């Protein structure tokens, strides 16, 4: 019992570290990637040089780090942490402080249900590489995402600022509008793989379609995939869906935040991006599955088999998962630096009048196909 708890705690720590690190590196990637896309250099100034004769030899090593702007996130962090812990005059001080915590907490909580590998057999134990093996994992993730809305509501209401308040109203309406589509698209996946358990869904994607094509969600639910990805993008409230808080142009719900609390909103934003990448990977791109890799090793459709050891298999799975997540993070950023922002009426039109009907039709179509296949 205690061992199980310790293992779960260890898994939670691992997951947390993965997410926080990817999210932290995001801030650097976002700067540099956008710079490269836009024919710029990006951050290449922050840093320090050592003047002491004892450590001067390190300077040549520091130079490339400075040049790559890797000190920039640290500088940003130091700046945010060093700033005054300020709360708006006339605002609700306590709620104002709690809002970013709630927002970040629920952004993290969803990761508990995401599997980042198959079962690991070690020292006679079966360790599922998933923090919480919930058989309703996907509903859990949605519940957590739904609670994230409270962070926005509280930040808007407690700021004593009508612009922040309106930003919060925009943010909440946008999130609950797109949650509907988000849920509806996943139902297709649930129908195909017959489970709400994320681990089961991923396992289901290990099968082969017509003997050669991995049965990934994107192949059985292409429409669902696009809809899900779009709706999830809207959930993160980033460009092109950044109407609740549009950095320089639109005043939004966390406009009255500064310092560490602002940093938490920023971090939560990145965590949500990672969440979207992880969910897309898990639901539509095979999660930790690597094409043709079974528990025993590679089994290719043309009959060849390559035996791979258990630990190597698990390692490939974890790496496969991470690579996919990172790739989607990259894609999300690229989209961010590509598309212009929607207008609010366009956003609502898209959510309710386009995507929701299409996703409902997708459910019906999926059901029909499944019935047909079963009938045949």
């Amino acid at each position, binding site marked *: 019992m205690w061992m199980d708890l310790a293992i779960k705690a260890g898994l939670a720590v691992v997951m947390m570290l993965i997410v926080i690190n990817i999210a932290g590196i995001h801030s650097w990637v976002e700067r540099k990637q956008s710079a490269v896309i836009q024919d710029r250099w990006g951050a290449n100034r922050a840093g320090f040089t050592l003047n002491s004769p004892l450590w001067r030899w390190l300077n040549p090593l520091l130079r490339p780090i400075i040049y790559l702007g890797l000190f920039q996130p640290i500088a940003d962090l130091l700046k945010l942490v060093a700033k005054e812990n300020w709360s708006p005059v006339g605002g609700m001080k306590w709620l104002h402080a709690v809002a970013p915590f709630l927002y970040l907490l629920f952004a993290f909580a969803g990761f508990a249900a995401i599997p980042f590998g198959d079962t690991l057999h070690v020292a006679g134990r079966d360790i599922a590489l998933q923090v919480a093996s919930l*058989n*309703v994992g996907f*509903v859990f993730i949605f*519940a957590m995402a*739904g*609670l994230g809305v409270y962070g926005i*509501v509280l930040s808007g209401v407690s700021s004593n600022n009508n612009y922040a308040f309106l930003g919060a*109203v925009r943010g*909440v309406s946008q999130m*609950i509008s797109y949650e509907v589509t988000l849920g509806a698209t996943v139902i297709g996946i649930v129908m195909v793989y017959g489970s709400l358990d994320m681990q089961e869904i991923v396992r289901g994607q290990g099968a082969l379609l017509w003997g050669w094509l991995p049965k990934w969600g994107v192949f059985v639910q292409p429409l669902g995939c696009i809809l899900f990805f779009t709706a999830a993008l809207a959930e993160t409230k980033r460009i092109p869906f950044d109407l609740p808080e549009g950095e320089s142009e639109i005043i939004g719900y966390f406009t009255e935040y500064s310092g560490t609390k602002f940093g938490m909103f920023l971090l939560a934003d990145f965590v949500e991006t990672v969440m979207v990448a992880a969910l897309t990977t898990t639901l539509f791109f095979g999660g930790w599955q690597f094409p043709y890799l079974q528990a025993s090793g590679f089994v290719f459709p043309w009959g060849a088999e390559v035996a791979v050891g258990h630990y190597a298999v698990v390692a490939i799975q974890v790496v496969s998962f991470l690579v996919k997540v990172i790739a989607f993070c990259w894609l999300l950023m690229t989209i961010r630096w590509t598309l212009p922002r929607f207008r609010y009426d366009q956003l609502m039109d898209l959510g309710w009048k386009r995507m929701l009907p299409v996703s409902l039709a997708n459910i019906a179509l999926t059901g029909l196909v499944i019935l047909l296949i079963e009938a045949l």
Partner: protein
Amino acid sequence: MAEHLFFLYFAVAALGCGAAMVTRSNLLHAALWMLAFFVHMAGIFLLLNAEFIAALQVMVYAGAILILYLFVIMLLDVRELAKVRQRHASATVASLIAGVMGAILVVTLARGTFAGTHGSATAALLASQGNVESVAGVLFTTYLLPFEVASLILLVAMVGAILLAKRRL
């Protein structure tokens, strides 16, 4: 043992949150206590192995319904409302009714009319059959009519709301 401790915590905390919710004069605070209450309710469902219900509890009540309440509260001037005197004459009547209903509830529970842990939806059944399946099975067979009636009521409410909001369609 641990389960009992958890149950104690969830039960007491849920009651406390509920009490706090109805006594707060600030509507926003009341709504937040309600959120805490929902989360603790979900905890009790979890102890019953009803993970699906727990998740739905949070997703539907906390994530959707309460948010709509909050929307309404946000559009009111919370500070002004907090100043309004909360004790009306009808409060006595209301607490009387609430007391009577509470008494009925306690008496009914004490008499063991409800199946409790001895009912059909046991933890073992949930574990073997799966959470969603057990709920879905009952919902779409035994309770199909009430379920459909409930859907119909919601539909009517929705149409009514739209009609009220948009006079000229």
